[in-house]
């Protein structure tokens, strides 16, 4: 056992010296390799965390949202609908929601104006608003400031900022403006009794589909949206976006694969000569292969660790700034993401398998071919 350890130590020692001799080649390889791992790991970490985040957000959203359709388009819920729904068995609570979009010419961005639910923690008094963190940052707002918006009908409304929303889930609250129901109706000139949609809370998830069916007969012009379906849509959007990025990356990955294969598998005449020398002075084929294995393993492990750590920092410390345009972009105000660090062991293993493993094989195969040749060739210059 001690000899074995001494032997591996000696082999690694020699490998390091050997790597240092081809500094440019190996550093270049390490760099490109690290970059690839970094990109792949970034995509994986980012989409994984995003998915979790979206899941968390939707967890608190209602089980059913009822919209009214006019000519196939989402329209306001007229007075009386809440009453018409009446008492459907299994529905714990029903509420009309008020929300709308507002275009801010200053930031050239859309805000979401919204009236908090009566039971929400964030109640806003009349004349006051609570704003999302990103928007507060961009407009330089702190509690106590006053801000004016010109409504679609041309009237100017002034509000006092009562608070800035915590940026726990900034993904959805970035562009949010919370205001009281009276202010909302005045600002958008929405008569009393009208709502954007109705939300229903359902205690038993098994009853959700039943309730949806009943709603369809009760209100034929309405469309119930189920949370589980939204979840599925989100999931597929993320998968789709992840897929797009991976496709974009696949060119780079392919280039790398070819590059690595060539670097690793194309033994230079010098390297072949060295293998011959090592064999002639008493190294076994297995020793040579082990040495080269350590060489590949050291490079690819270093690249994997560096790339993965860099990706982790990129996604969770530096808000994935490389991906913002591709992976997000449903709101104009880019939230400054602080995603909750989320590492999936399976993903790490997959990435490891697809980066370190092929490289190790790529290095060993040609060595193996070179190392099984007869050692007497070295005798002849």
């Amino acid at each position, binding site marked *: 056992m001690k000899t074995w350890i001494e*032997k591996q130590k000696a082999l690694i*020692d020699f490998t390091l*010296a050997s790597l*240092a*001799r081809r500094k440019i080649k190996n550093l270049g390889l390490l760099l490109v390799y690290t970059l690839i791992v970094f990109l792949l790991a970034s995509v994986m970490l980012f989409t994984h965390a995003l998915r979790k985040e979206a899941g968390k957000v939707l967890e608190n959203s209602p089980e059913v949202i009822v919209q009214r359709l006019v000519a196939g388009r989402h329209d306001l819920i007229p007075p009386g609908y809440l009453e018409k729904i009446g008492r459907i068995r299994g529905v714990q609570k029903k509420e009309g929601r008020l929300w709308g979009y507002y275009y801010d010419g200053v930031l050239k961005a859309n805000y979401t104006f919204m009236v908090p639910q009566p039971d929400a923690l964030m109640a806003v008094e009349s004349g006051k608003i609570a704003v999302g963190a990103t928007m507060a940052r961009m407009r330089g707002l702190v509690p106590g400031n006053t801000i004016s918006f010109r409504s679609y009908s041309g009237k100017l409304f002034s509000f006092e900022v009562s608070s800035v929303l915590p940026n726990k889930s900034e993904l959805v609250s970035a562009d949010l403006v919370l205001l009281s129901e009276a202010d909302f109706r005045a600002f958008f000139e929405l008569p009393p009794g009208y709502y954007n949609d109705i939300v229903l809370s359902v205690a038993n998830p098994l009853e959700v589909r039943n309730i949806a069916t009943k709603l369809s007969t009760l209100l034929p012009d309405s469309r119930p949206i189920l949370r589980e379906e939204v979840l599925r849509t989100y999931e597929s959007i993320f998968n789709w976006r992840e897929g797009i990025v991976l496709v974009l990356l696949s060119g780079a990955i392919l280039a790398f694969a070819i590059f690595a294969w060539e670097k690793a598998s194309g033994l230079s005449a010098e390297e072949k000569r060295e293998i011959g020398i090592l064999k002639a*002075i008493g190294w076994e084929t297995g020793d040579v292969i082990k040495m080269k294995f350590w060489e590949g393993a050291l490079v690819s492990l270093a690249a994997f660790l560096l790339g993965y750590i860099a990706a982790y920092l990129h996604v969770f410390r530096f808000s994935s700034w490389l991906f913002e345009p591709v992976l997000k972009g449903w709101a104009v105000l880019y939230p400054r993401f602080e995603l909750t660090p989320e590492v999936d062991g399976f993903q790490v293993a997959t990435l490891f398998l697809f980066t370190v493993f092929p490289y190790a094989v790529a290095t060993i195969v040609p060595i193996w071919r070179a190392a099984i040749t007869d*050692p007497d060739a070295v*005798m002849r210059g």
Partner: protein
Amino acid sequence: MIEVSEVRKAFNQGRHNEYWALKGISLTIEAKKVTALCGPSGSGKTTLLTIIGCLARPTSGRVRLKERDISGLPERFLTDIRRSTFGFVFQQFNLIKGLSALDNVMLPAYPLGGDWRALRARAESLLDSLGLAHRREARVEWLSGGEQQRVAIARALVNDPEVLIADEPTANLDTALSKEFLAILEALAEQGRTVLLTSHDPLVVEAAVIDSVIDMRDGQIVGIR
């Protein structure tokens, strides 16, 4: 110590360019003696060295090392024997570029997994005894031809082999350096090391340190002095 009987070696056997480099060689190499294979270029000296040194196998015939037939052994065993019994000094020295003299000397011992400090001490003292103490850390490509050969000799001796094999050791050296090599050879002979070398250099073949000379031509032995 080494007995070669009826050894024949063909290259490209069965093909149109089949070539018999050795055509029935029988000889005995005695322990603790210096033996020289002498002959013109192409006479098969290097080929015979590779077979005796377990770098290659004969096409037919036997090689016995200390009463043990080694001609039919699989590669693994040959490597083992080669490592423990033979040290090689190649004609082109075959040092590994980019590594220091010391690293080159230590290289053959790495797969044995011995104590690293002891190995280093051994390599250092070998280099010292060959007058290379001041060149230990120098990369081998910066060394002169004579220095490179001495590094190669130190490397051949690091595993303390019974037999030292040297192919055309003075082919790349001028007269002064060749004489230095002969001095090293004398020291090795004094220590009782078995040495087998090839040469067609009269300076070597006629040197006093050589115990016996085997003359070769066209893959055959034509005389033993």
